[in-house]
């Protein structure tokens, strides 16, 4: 009942992982679901968890070394079990089937958690509701995982699962595609779902509680001829994404006033300008679902939920964690979440499901003193809003020059979906909300 520990696909696009740190030593007793190591993916540092019980007999990858997804990197087995064959086979092709080692659990095993004699690469469960965008192109997790036993003649590539496993997965908001099946023919059974739940992947799902039937999350609109023509002509003109930019300057006096008044109530009521902008953008998007969309090549997907991507600069790049259902959240929730997400983004601790699934994005360089800039659309989204710095300026109001706090925003629009007037109407709504921030509590 040895368990192979392999480099798992810990992000949707991960092809190899660098082992940052082993958290268990050879000889340590390992429980199912325990963290074995920290692994750096292309996006973040993730935890690699045990998918079986026993003793960590052998570590096959040194810290700081990288291994392709599927490569054997450790073996968990009984203290006296012969693992020579397994260890000598290390370094074989990635994702070699684990079948030969999947012997039955010993007769003394505790049945509630029968040692899961599996080590197949299995991607962590990730949100796959309809609100998730199509995964980025390269290296999707190799789901569904290969069956543990040699696939039997019938059934072919169809994923098998027991009725109970399906029910448990749905109750836990778990995508069975991401669960490795240890039953005959790769059937996903109760213990597999329990292991997936125990590994913590499910608990972390921010939107799990909000799962609604797929059909309610978005509406697909087939491309009309005019949209096809616009898409084709404009792409020819400017590149794969025919982008245009709309800039507007908002008056921020009332926002500043509101923020000051709230802060005066006590530290717990402090929110940043950015929090207020996020709240306003979320609200505006809910009123303009035609901007809250994905371009899918042959159709446009309009979302009924607003998942706001928030670009965060990190040491060697940037990442866009998502505030799910931003339109539904109170400002205090957005404030807390954005702070938390930004912090963990900088620590590279974000889970894949926390940075996928956005329907629109916001990028703010105001804190760097940038007056105005154009942000690049993150496809398949069709718009991104670039937020500039807040500054005091002389402006003419009612015929007289006055000093006002002002902020410039620039919206990048994918012209295949968002026409100029549409983008302008969206910014009009955003202006009304930001210049009259009480509307945000309406």
């Amino acid at each position, binding site marked *: 009942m040895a368990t192979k520990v392999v480099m798992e696909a810990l992000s949707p696009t991960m092809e190899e992982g660098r082992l940052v740190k082993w958290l268990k030593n050879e000889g340590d007793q390992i429980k199912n679901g325990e963290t074995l190591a920290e692994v750096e993916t292309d996006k973040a540092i993730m935890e690699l968890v045990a998918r079986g019980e026993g003793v960590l007999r052998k570590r096959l990858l040194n810290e700081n070394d990288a291994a392709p997804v599927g490569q054997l990197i450790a073996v968990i087995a009984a203290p006296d079990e012969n693992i020579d064959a397994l260890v000598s086979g290390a370094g074989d092709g990635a994702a070699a089937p684990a079948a030969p080692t999947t012997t*039955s659990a010993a007769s*003394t095993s505790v*049945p*509630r958690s*029968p040692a899961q004699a599996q080590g197949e690469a299995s991607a962590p469960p990730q949100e796959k509701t309809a609100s998730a965008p199509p995964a980025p192109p390269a290296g999707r997790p190799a789901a569904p995982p290969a069956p543990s036993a040699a696939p039997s003649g019938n059934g072919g590539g169809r994923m098998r699962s027991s*009725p*109970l496993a399906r*029910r448990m997965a749905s109750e836990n908001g778990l995508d069975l595609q991401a669960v490795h099946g240890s039953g005959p023919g790769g059937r996903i059974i*109760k213990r597999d779902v329990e292991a997936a739940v125990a590994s913590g992947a499910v608990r972390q799902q921010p939107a799990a509680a909000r799962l609604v039937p797929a059909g309610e999350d978005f509406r697909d609109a087939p491309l009309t001829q005019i949209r096809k023509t616009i898409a084709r002509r404009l792409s020819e003109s400017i590149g794969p994404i025919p982008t245009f930019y709309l800039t507007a300057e908002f008056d921020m006096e009332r926002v500043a006033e509101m923020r000051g008044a709230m802060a005066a109530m006590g530290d717990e009521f402090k929110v940043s300008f950015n929090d207020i902008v996020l709240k306003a953008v979320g609200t505006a998007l809910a009123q303009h679902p035609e901007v809250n969309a994905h371009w899918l090549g042959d159709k446009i997907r309009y979302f009924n939920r607003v998942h706001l991507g928030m670009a965060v600069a990190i040491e060697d790049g940037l990442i866009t964690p998502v505030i799910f259902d931003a339109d539904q959240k109170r400002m205090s929730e957005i404030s807390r979440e954005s702070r938390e997400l930004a912090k963990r983004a900088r620590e590279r601790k974000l889970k894949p499901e926390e940075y996928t699934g956005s329907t629109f994005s916001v990028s703010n360089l105001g804190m760097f003193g940038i007056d105005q800039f154009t942000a690049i659309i993150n496809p398949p989204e069709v718009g991104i809003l670039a937020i500039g710095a807040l500054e005091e300026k002389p402006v003419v109001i009612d015929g007289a020059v006055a000093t006002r706090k002002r902020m410039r925003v620039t919206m990048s629009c994918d012209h295949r979906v968002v026409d100029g007037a549409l983008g302008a109407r969206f910014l009009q709504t955003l202006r009304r909300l930001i210049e009259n921030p009480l509307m945000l509590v309406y």
Partner: protein
Amino acid sequence: MSVITYRDALNQALREEMHRDDRVFLMGEEVAVYQGAYKVSKGLLQEFGEMRVVDTPITELGFAGVGVGAAMVGLRPIIEFMTWNFALLAIDQVVNSAAKMLYMSGGQYNIPMVFRGPNGAALQLSAQHSQAWESWLAHIPGLKVVAPGTPYDAKGLLKSAIRDDDPVIVLEGEMLYNTKGEVPENEEVIVPIGKAELKREGEHASIITHGKMVLTALQAADQLGKQGINVDVVDLRTIRPMDIDAITTSVRKTNRAVVLEEGWEFCGVGAQVVDYIQRECFDDLDAPVVRIHQADVPMPYAKNLERAAKPDAAKTVAAVKKVMYLE
């Protein structure tokens, strides 16, 4: 609480019910002077006399029919078949007269009678005398069928059967007559018809069974327990009407079921149990239900072949491991 044999438990039930109601009488081959082929009726002739403990010729169809007639005019006959293998000769009276009389008389004649005797295989009695008939009998609307596995249930169910106003089939076991169990002395033992009992409580799988196989299931449960596997043993006790709640409650808890019976697989009682499980517990199942039963052959005489053909604890243990994906 005293420990008595299954045989004595049945004897107590007969005696108590004959005392309680003088319309109750016992009739069959060798029940009186010989005191019963398996001594179940020991002492009854002496106690109740030859009007109420009646020896018959070897004419199963005849005395079963006399019993139906007696029931129609208000008596409460108990018909003993020396074994259920011989009851085949009387099947027309059981199926066509006793079971259907209430229906065909438009409710005018209910048939308060009991057909009882040993059912299933003993040891090396060969093909014609080693058969479990419950699926035949339970197939018939109008019959109630009970199959006690312990002395307590034997006493309690036979008493309920005698008091029931419809024909009740009591399936005993030749190999059970000498088994012992606790039966309280100073209180009335009644086991309601249609009520299963959880004979062992566990969490990992459910063994659903009845009659003699309850003992096999408990043996298997003991062996599994030593390996850390704890099973529910659901003793149906009554095959018809079946206690569906007891089955579904257990399977919903454990998510895995093994159905164990003494008879053949095809159209067996287990098939009905599996049907209830798939109807009521589809979303609770983690594995296909496995059935354990006699091999699909006439019972061999040779000792080794007979052993191979019969369901036993080892086969049950293997089935439990299979539904738990441990094999």
